[in-house]
């Protein structure tokens, strides 16, 4: 083997790379990017700050793309053959969470879709996909989209997330229009003179906004937001603990090509119309699971003691039978206790079911817990 063939791809940088360094970030490799895992506050304080004030996240590593067809119905119908959400009935400006599915009903990726509010964007859908799955997703879309519906990756765009209970007042000061957005809707607005696409959504369980902006203006926008009292930069470490407390899935951990949306507890994202038409990949399995229950279910888990149970920890029944594994686990700063998610058979998925977790060779008591661990505070 030569060094040339084994060398890793050089890490990519987001448009905010220099700003991260200036803000004292500790940078780590993540999904092919050099990303801030935490800033000077540290993971714990950054997490708690986001739950009490507002946190600014750089999520520019995520893939942004447009799907473009002749009109909304054409584009929506094309994408509906690949995912179980009702896209046809998306209103202008409406956003939806869904999953690209394989023929077995396993999840290729989970993603956010927005039908642009502007009439000028007729026939377009805006997609935000996971950084780690971007290439797989784009190849899958290109291979399966009919002629006349095209994928147009939005390169040269950054994505920022402003999350937390005071995010609203920060956005309000910059754009009353953005502040009036309902949960899971988006619009084109100007923030401090910068053209942005803003949606009322996020990955923390808190109220908040995700802001797509041209790469060239991203640092300027970030500084504008950070200039507000109570806004702190927040790294990927706290992003992970926040989404775990909120019971949200991380692709490649809590969901993958073997898990179905029903197993993962995402049946809420499959609208009634699609259950009726069954015109999505893996529909047979998924409709059967909706009717009769899935073999296994994603559940929350609360260890009895203080020891965190990390990803990969085996979940056992009290008599020793292996039930499944922890898919995300750690310490929840707002819960002030260890928390985890994992898969167990349907019959063991009821909240309160006692289980054991094998941590460093020892069986530690735990119980199945309802998700989320921290109540969602979305602006409904």
């Amino acid at each position, binding site marked *: 083997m030569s060094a040339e063939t084994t060398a890793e791809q050089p890490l990519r940088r987001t448009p905010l790379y220099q700003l991260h360094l200036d803000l004292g970030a500790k940078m780590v490799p993540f999904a092919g990017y050099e990303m801030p895992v935490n800033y000077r506050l*540290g*993971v*714990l304080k950054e997490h708690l700050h986001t739950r009490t004030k507002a946190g600014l996240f750089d999520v520019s590593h995520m893939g942004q793309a447009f799907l473009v067809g002749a009109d909304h119905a054409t584009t929506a119908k094309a994408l509906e053959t690949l995912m179980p959400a009702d896209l046809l009935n998306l209103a202008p400006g409406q956003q939806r969470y869904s999953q690209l599915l394989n023929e077995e009903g396993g999840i290729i990726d989970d993603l956010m879709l927005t039908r642009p509010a502007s009439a000028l964007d007729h026939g377009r859908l805006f997609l935000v996909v996971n950084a780690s799955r971007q290439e797989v997703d784009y190849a899958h879309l290109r291979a399966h989209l009919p002629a006349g519906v095209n994928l147009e990756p939005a390169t040269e765009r950054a994505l920022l997330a402003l999350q937390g209970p005071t995010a609203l007042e920060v956005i309000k000061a910059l754009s009353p229009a953005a502040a009036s957005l309902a949960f899971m809707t988006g619009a084109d607005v100007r923030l401090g003179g910068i053209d942005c696409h803003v949606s009322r959504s996020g990955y923390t369980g808190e109220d908040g906004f995700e802001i797509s902006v041209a790469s060239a203006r991203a640092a300027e926008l970030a500084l504008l937001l950070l200039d507000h009292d109570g806004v702190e930069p927040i790294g990927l*470490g706290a992003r992970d603990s926040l989404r775990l407390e909120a019971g949200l899935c991380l692709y490649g951990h809590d969901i993958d090509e073997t898990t179905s949306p029903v197993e993962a507890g995402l049946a809420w994202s499959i609208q009634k119309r699609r259950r009726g038409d069954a015109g999505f990949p893996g529909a047979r399995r998924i409709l059967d699971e909706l009717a009769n229950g899935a073999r296994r279910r994603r559940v929350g888990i609360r260890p009895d003691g203080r*020891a*965190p149970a*990390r990803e990969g920890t085996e979940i056992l029944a009290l008599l020793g039978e292996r039930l499944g594994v922890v898919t995300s686990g750690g*310490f929840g*700063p707002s819960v002030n206790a*260890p928390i985890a998610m994992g898969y167990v058979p349907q019959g063991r998925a009821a909240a309160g079911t006692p289980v054991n977790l094998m941590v460093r060779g020892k069986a530690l008591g735990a119980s199945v817990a309802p998700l989320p661990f921290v109540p969602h505070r979305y602006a409904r």
Partner: protein
Amino acid sequence: MPVERYSKDHEWIRVEDGIATVGITDHAQQQLGDIVFVEVPEPGRQAKQGEPVAVVESVKAASDVFAPVSGEVIEANAEIATQPALVNEDAQGKAWFFKLKISNAAELDTLMDEATYLEFVKQSS
């Protein structure tokens, strides 16, 4: 005069009258970040040099704490088990992990003195 040494795994060890007090270095706690869980060994445990005997966990990750020399665990610090954040506050003082009755003092020669350790940290960062 106690002798102080450091391991490549970022433990410190202070030796007085054949008894070693062991903890993790200030550099190690900084690298780990907010510490939320500590597991210390049971007294009476025989530990070999380099064996994992304690655990320290931050929000993100779990790390082993190794015995820098062989010996019998004679005491563990219960305070850090109930107050893990103490490791961030005073890693090389109050937040010691355990005490060992050294079984092979020659192993101390495999460890670094403070100046060498600080240089080691600088080189590896």
